[in-house]
């Protein structure tokens, strides 16, 4: 460690969060592998949702030719992010395809068949970003589709918009990279430190932050030295670099804030509530590329590692590249591969299918062998040892939450602040009974959200049902009113001269017919030349009619 580093660490007072774990970091597998370009795949699959918020809306059609960096889907609403073509080619499909999600479900994706030319769209650079106002900068960052590259994928421009009344005390750049195995941020800093610093300066400008701190764990001395050297070269750039002790999960936003500033983010709150904004270093580099080079977010660095892959590597990967292609570039998987994860071993998602695409948040492809990491053995009953509460970095009571989540008592589990759980996996890692604790919390969280949606839906149904009943009653009343009106009108008529008028009308009509008959003087000729039989029938009919008339008169 250089002297500068020592002095810096000595001047910076650090705090610590509750709990945490020292994990076997396994970073040596890939941390000496410099960043290589992943081979351009024949086909790129881009899910419309690679971020928190609403899915993007496609603005291309099947068969369209797209250039590298061209926007292919625009944000749908405020909390959403744009999507760009990672390489030039043709839009082959917009269809439901499997995405890297724990559910293994399908979602809408844009599929691009690459043409191998990798031809860029015209790029608009903003070298002089210091003269651009923050609002315009945010628009550039929004249009570049940048989301948090640390893992959560929250649209970055929103985190760069603190609101008119909020002042930002501290901008923290998160270079902790606390999960085992992952080395993409480490390599990024070592090889592209100027990009990170440039991005940090743009972010600082956009936020008007008073203080800017880069927090990095002390298991990455080379990256720390690179940052120190770069800042020394630049001089007068008010960015501090602080080494923090290696402890999982220091890279959690709230944990890093606590370590660097001693402040705690309120329960279910955001860092901006305590005037702090936290971004990942890779996001900073992406911001630099978007603003100064005009390149939207179309690629990221992915660590492909684990003992289940022959040669671990750090690959600069286009978004949408199939994971199988990356594994192939790393010499393929070994025979004893037991589990393939997207993300780190603590928080990653187990992939059922190797052919899924890399998304904006996919920092690591981890191929694990049977005895490599995490709890082994069968699930047993909780023995109430309390180890989980000791390691919880949010000071929750994981055991209590476990009991209530297991009993599906969702009110109680929320009383124990379920929604402050960051799902870091420390509790499950130390559990001697191998209980899948995080899965219980995830189950409870998603079930509670589902119930909230149901509740909303039932409120809507009640409103619509009430409205329908009100409408039916109104219609019934209207119909009754109409009927009553009609009846009244009828009674009015019949009570007066109605009967007489009718008879008069009939009489008048008969008169008119008679006059007409006489005027034409045409006698019907159908009674001429009758046979005797017909004459007899007519006579009989006449006799019957006369009898009937007499009968009728008698009766009346």
């Amino acid at each position, binding site marked *: 460690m250089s002297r500068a580093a020592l002095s810096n660490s000595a001047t910076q007072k650090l705090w610590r969060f509750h709990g945490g774990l020292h994990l076997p970091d396994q970073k040596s597998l890939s941390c000496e592998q410099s960043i290589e370009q992943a081979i351009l795949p024949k086909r790129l699959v881009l899910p419309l*949702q690679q971020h928190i918020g609403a899915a993007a809306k496609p603005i291309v059609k099947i068969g369209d030719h797209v250039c590298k960096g061209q926007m292919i889907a625009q944000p749908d609403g405020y909390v959403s992010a744009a999507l760009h073509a990672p390489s030039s080619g043709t839009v082959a499909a917009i269809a439901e395809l499997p*995405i890297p*999600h*724990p*559910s293994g*479900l399908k*979602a809408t994706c844009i599929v691009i068949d690459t043409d191998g030319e990798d031809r860029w769209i015209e790029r608009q650079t903003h070298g002089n970003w210091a003269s651009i106002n923050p609002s315009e900068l945010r628009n550039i960052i929004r249009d570049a589709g940048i989301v948090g590259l640390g893992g959560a994928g929250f649209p970055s421009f929103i985190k760069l918009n603190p609101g008119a009344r909020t002042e930002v005390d501290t901008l923290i750049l998160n270079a902790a990279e606390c999960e085992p195995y992952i080395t993409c941020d480490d390599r990024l800093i070592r090889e592209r430190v100027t990009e990170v610093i440039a991005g940090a300066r743009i972010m600082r400008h956009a936020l008007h932050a008073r203080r800017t701190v880069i927090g990095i764990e002390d298991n990455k001395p080379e990256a720390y030295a690179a940052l120190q050297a770069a800042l020394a070269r630049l001089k007068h750039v008010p960015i501090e670099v602080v080494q923090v002790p290696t402890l999982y999960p220091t890279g959690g936003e709230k944990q890093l804030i606590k370590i660097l500033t001693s402040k705690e983010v309120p329960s279910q709150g955001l860092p901006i509530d305590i005037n702090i904004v936290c971004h990942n270093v890779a996001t900073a580099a992406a911001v630099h590329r978007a603003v100064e080079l005009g390149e939207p977010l179309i690629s990221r660095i992915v660590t492909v590692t684990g003992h289940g892959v022959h040669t671990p590597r750090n690959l600069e990967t286009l978004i949408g590249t199939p994971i199988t292609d990356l594994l192939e570039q790393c010499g393929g998987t070994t025979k004893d591969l037991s589990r393939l994860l997207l993300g780190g071993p603590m928080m990653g998602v187990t992939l059922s299918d190797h052919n899924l695409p890399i998304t904006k948040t996919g920092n690591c492809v981890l191929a694990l062998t049977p005895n490599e990491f995490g709890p082994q053995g*069968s*699930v*047993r*009953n909780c023995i109430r040892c309390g180890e989980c509460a000791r390691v919880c970095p949010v000071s929750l009571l994981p055991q209590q939450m476990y009991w209530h989540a*297991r009993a*599906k008592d969702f009110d109680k589990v929320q009383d124990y602040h379920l929604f402050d759980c960051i799902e870091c996996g420390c509790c499950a890692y130390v559990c001697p*009974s191998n*209980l*899948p604790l995080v*899965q*219980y919390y*995830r*189950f409870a*969280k*998603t*079930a509670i959200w*589902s*119930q909230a*949606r*149901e509740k909303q*839906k*039932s*409120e*809507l*149904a*009640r409103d*619509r*049902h009430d*409205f*329908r009943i009100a409408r039916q009653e109104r219609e019934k009343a209207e119909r009754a009113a109409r009927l009553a009106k009609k009846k009244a009108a009828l009674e009015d008529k019949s009570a007066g001269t109605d009967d007489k008028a009718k008879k008069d009308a009939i009489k008048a009509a008969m008169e008119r017919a008679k006059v007409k008959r006489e005027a034409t003087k045409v006698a019907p000729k159908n009674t001429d030349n009758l046979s005797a039989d017909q004459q007899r029938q007519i006579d009989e009919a006449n006799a019957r009619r006369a009898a009937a008339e007499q009968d009728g008169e008698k009766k009346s």
Partner: protein
Amino acid sequence: MLTAILALAVLALVFGLILGYAAVRFKVESDPIVDRIDAILPQSQCGQCGFAGCRPYAEALARGEVDINLCPPGGEAVVMGLADLLGRDVKPVEGGAKKKMIAHIDETTCIGCTLCIQACPVDAILGAAKQMHTIIADECTGCELCVAPCPVNCIKMISVKVAPATWIWPYPPTSQQAKEDS
């Protein structure tokens, strides 16, 4: 003695007036417990409980006449909510909890008779006489009341598609189950 009687009489009168005024001023239109029960019910208005909608069932529950497990669309969550509110024991749902479904009209077969529109308790069917009808999927509660009236059998119940955003993590297998499995 007389003053005491008078004082008490006056007091009684004053309080009587206050109570009388309060009874008028703060009149409760309906039993609040009915509203609270109604808030738990899924509002599908399907009548599978044997009542003509959710509110009549809520009223019967409030009177303590019926069981809390008669609501198949509500499933376990409703039974648990009602048990909690009414202090009764949790029971399995009568006829088993149902998977969430919504109605779907085969638009090529629909003759536009409007019978389903009249049956829908939440006005979730769009159409007019001799015009093709369609279900507003977001507002359909899956009550199945439109299925029977259709003269050409063009309404089917389909299961609701689960998207990654609405997906629920599976409930982890408990230790006993895990043992049995292995």
